């Protein structure tokens, strides 16, 4: 773009959000060009610059966001929404340049409503701040992902995030009452007065998971919960995963634990041994159950009786408590994989009759196609009908190509092979990290002709295709 037009656009953006909230500085372009996507980090680590935005704007509310989107539509400039930059799928990377719309100034806690049990906040609020706001009134959000301290409310909504106590309290898409959204044309809408209704399809669920391709979520009402009277943990060791699946399915017909994590033998022998200290071979499972003490006492009895039927060794509460203490540590460098290793999490979800098959199919396919790739997994986020498998591949430094382009090619091949295998066996592209640019190419493979529904909505709401191009396969 020529300097004259660029300057014209800058002055209009400055007018929309204030000069101090519109930047074309190197530092702001650079810091919005790398997120937690392995490829972007590797690219920077190899001394390369990732694609950068031309303008960084930080609106303070929906009105300013609306002005930005109107400008972007007029000049047909791409807009990529950025929250905390903690995404792993490259969803917030400005691969087509244009505008980065950073939401972090929209961080206001508008209301802690203890009558209806929700917090209304700007979507630029770091989720931990929302948790603090709940804690100050004696409540909790019960959304505890490992990225709690580095991701925004909007970030979690954009890619359908999940936390460690999801089995009892639900995913982020279960935790929203209502949202304010700025559409690509600049119109500001509210989704609904209540999340459950028969007034047509659920508008919340159209925008949750849309990764900034259909608009910008600027405000949300997020559920809060009473702090549990007690939270108890129990570790178990199963001989094999099949018996663990049967035991867990049975438990979930009876009550909902908050945490359920089943580790495969490989992850039990590596990560669980290292961090939690379980030495014995087998499949380790940690279960937490919480709430009113009288109910928890009953749940504990049901849990122990049920798991013993399936041959689980009761390891007591010590390992589970240690796990809870380290629940975030698991995912951080120094405790887990990091550059220069290549790695990725191919989480997928399926009903019980398919999930174990998916695990073995992905493991066998990846390990046979790429002999140097390690594959480990655990199963968390359980439902009455199925659960999620959190499979991870790891390539040690000596097998990662020096050349970043070659490294990128290998990375993408592993992903394609792994996710295709998940889809072929009844899984989905992703469970809770989203799609981004990383997996967009596989969306049509999962959805087939159903993809036209997404494409139709996209075309209707964003006819100029300015919102987060090349993401979500749209």
């Amino acid at each position: 773009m020529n300097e004259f037009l660029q300057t014209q656009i800058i002055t209009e953006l400055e007018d929309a959000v204030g000069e101090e909230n519109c930047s074309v500085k190197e530092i702001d372009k650079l810091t919005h060009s790398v997120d937690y996507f392995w490829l972007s980090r590797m690219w920077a680590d190899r001394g390369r610059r990732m694609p950068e935005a031309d303008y960084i704007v930080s609106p303070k509310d929906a009105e300013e966001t609306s002005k930005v989107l109107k400008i972007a539509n007029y000049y047909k400039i791409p807009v990529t929404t950025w929250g905390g930059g903690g995404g792993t799928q490259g969803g917030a990377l400005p691969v087509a340049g244009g505008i980065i719309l950073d939401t972090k100034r929209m961080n206001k806690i508008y209301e802690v409503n203890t009558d209806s049990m929700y917090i209304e906040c700007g979507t630029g609020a770091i989720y931990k701040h929302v948790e603090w706001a709940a804690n100050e009134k004696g409540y909790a959000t019960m959304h505890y992902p490992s990225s709690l301290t580095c991701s925004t409310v909007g970030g979690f909504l954009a890619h359908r995030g999940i936390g460690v106590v999801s089995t009892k309290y639900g995913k982020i898409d279960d935790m929203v009452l209502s949202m304010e959204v700025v559409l690509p044309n600049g119109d500001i809408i509210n989704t609904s007065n209540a999340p459950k209704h028969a007034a047509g399809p659920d508008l919340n669920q159209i925008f949750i998971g849309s990764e900034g391709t259909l608009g910008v979520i600027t405000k949300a009402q997020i559920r809060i919960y009473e702090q549990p009277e007690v939270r108890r943990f129990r570790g178990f060791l199963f001989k094999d995963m099949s018996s663990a699946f049967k035991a867990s399915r049975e438990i979930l017909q009876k009550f909902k634990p908050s945490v359920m994590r089943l580790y495969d033998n490989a992850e039990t022998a590596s990560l669980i041994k290292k961090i939690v200290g379980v030495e014995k071979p087998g499949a380790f499972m940690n279960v937490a159950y919480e709430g009113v003490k009288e109910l928890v006492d009953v749940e504990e009895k049901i849990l122990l009786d049920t798991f013993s039927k399936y041959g689980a060794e009761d390891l007591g509460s010590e390992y589970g408590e240690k796990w809870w203490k380290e629940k975030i540590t698991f995912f951080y460098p120094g405790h887990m994989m990091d550059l220069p290793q290549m790695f990725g999490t191919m989480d997928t979800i399926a009903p019980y009759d398919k999930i174990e098959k998916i695990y073995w199919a992905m493991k066998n396919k990846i390990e046979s196609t790429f002999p140097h790739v390690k594959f480990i997994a655990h199963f968390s986020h359980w439902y009455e009908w199925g659960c999620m498998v959190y499979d991870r591949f790891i390539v040690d430094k000596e097998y990662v190509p020096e050349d970043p382009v070659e490294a990128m090619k290998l990375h993408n091949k592993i992903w394609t092979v792994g996710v295709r295998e998940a889809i072929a066996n009844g899984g989905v592209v992703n469970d809770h990290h989203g799609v981004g640019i990383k997996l967009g190419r596989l969306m049509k493979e999962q959805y087939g002709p159903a993809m036209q529904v997404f494409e139709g909505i996209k075309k209707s709401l964003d006819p100029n295709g300015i919102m987060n191009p090349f993401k979500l396969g749209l």
Partner: protein
Amino acid sequence: MCRHICPIGNATGQERNTARARALCASVVVRGAEKIDDIIDNIYECSLCGACTNNCITGWDPKIFIQEVKADAVLNGVIPPYIKDLLTKYQQTGNVYGIPYDESLKKYFDRESNILFLVGQDALYKSANSVKNACELLKKAGVNFTLNEKSNSTGSALWFLVGKTADTKQSAEQSAEIINGYEKVVVYDPVDLKFIKREWAEWGVTVKAEIIGFNAFLIDLIDSGKLNVVKSDKAYTVQDNYAYSRELDDSETVRKLVDRVGVNKEMLLNGKETNLAGHLIMNEYMKEVQSKVAANRWENAKNMDCKTLVTENPAEYELLKENCPDGYRVLSVEEMISENIK
């Protein structure tokens, strides 16, 4: 990396004001993909409060690389002009603010005594009332002390501006030479106390005098009966200073002080988890942000219905006071003790 805890990032909402962004920038410079000139302003937007370090699960200490970048900027001659201004003032006047201390404080200087009261540059040049109140409280307790202007150049201000350089070390050594002429040194500002106990020790700067923090000294005065205080049910809330709570691992002394005169009511983010409420040197070049930093801390206080904040550091005292909402008040520890003297 953590986004939630940086007081500057929370005030500006800017991605660059996160530990992650600073680490990324420094790493990109090291890899030759960016010039240091383009990232240096952002380095000076860090207060070195260590909240990110304290919260870092992976054990990283961003303060270390931030100080290394500053030292590198000095070597490469790319210090920002507003930092150069402060350094010029330091060279010309001996303090980064380039101003003389308040005339009313003159009477506390250069008196015959074995006890040096080292108030630090922030208090001496920017918080005259703090110095006055603290000195009057010591006098009330019958403490024979003196102030010495040059002793206040401990090097902590220079260290903040340029990292560990020969000038910083020289400043520390000159200050040490003065304080070693006394038997006991009471250090008012925890930032200086931390600097003397940490950096001086690391750099081999010899300290012969007994060093004691102001809070601990006050406890001794109260417990030995030299200061007679009344305990009531007045509620006070401690604004922990990072230097005491995180760097010196002392969140207890100030709470003991509160306990002697009233009741401690904690607000969110206390003790080691404390959040900065203001930085006077940064206030010279990013005033609006420092006001927001203080205002954010007031929000924490308001949410927990804490009406009286007690500070242990002159920078936080001044900035919280400047941004104090109606119906709330901020007291320094000496003011809290003074209002409860029998």
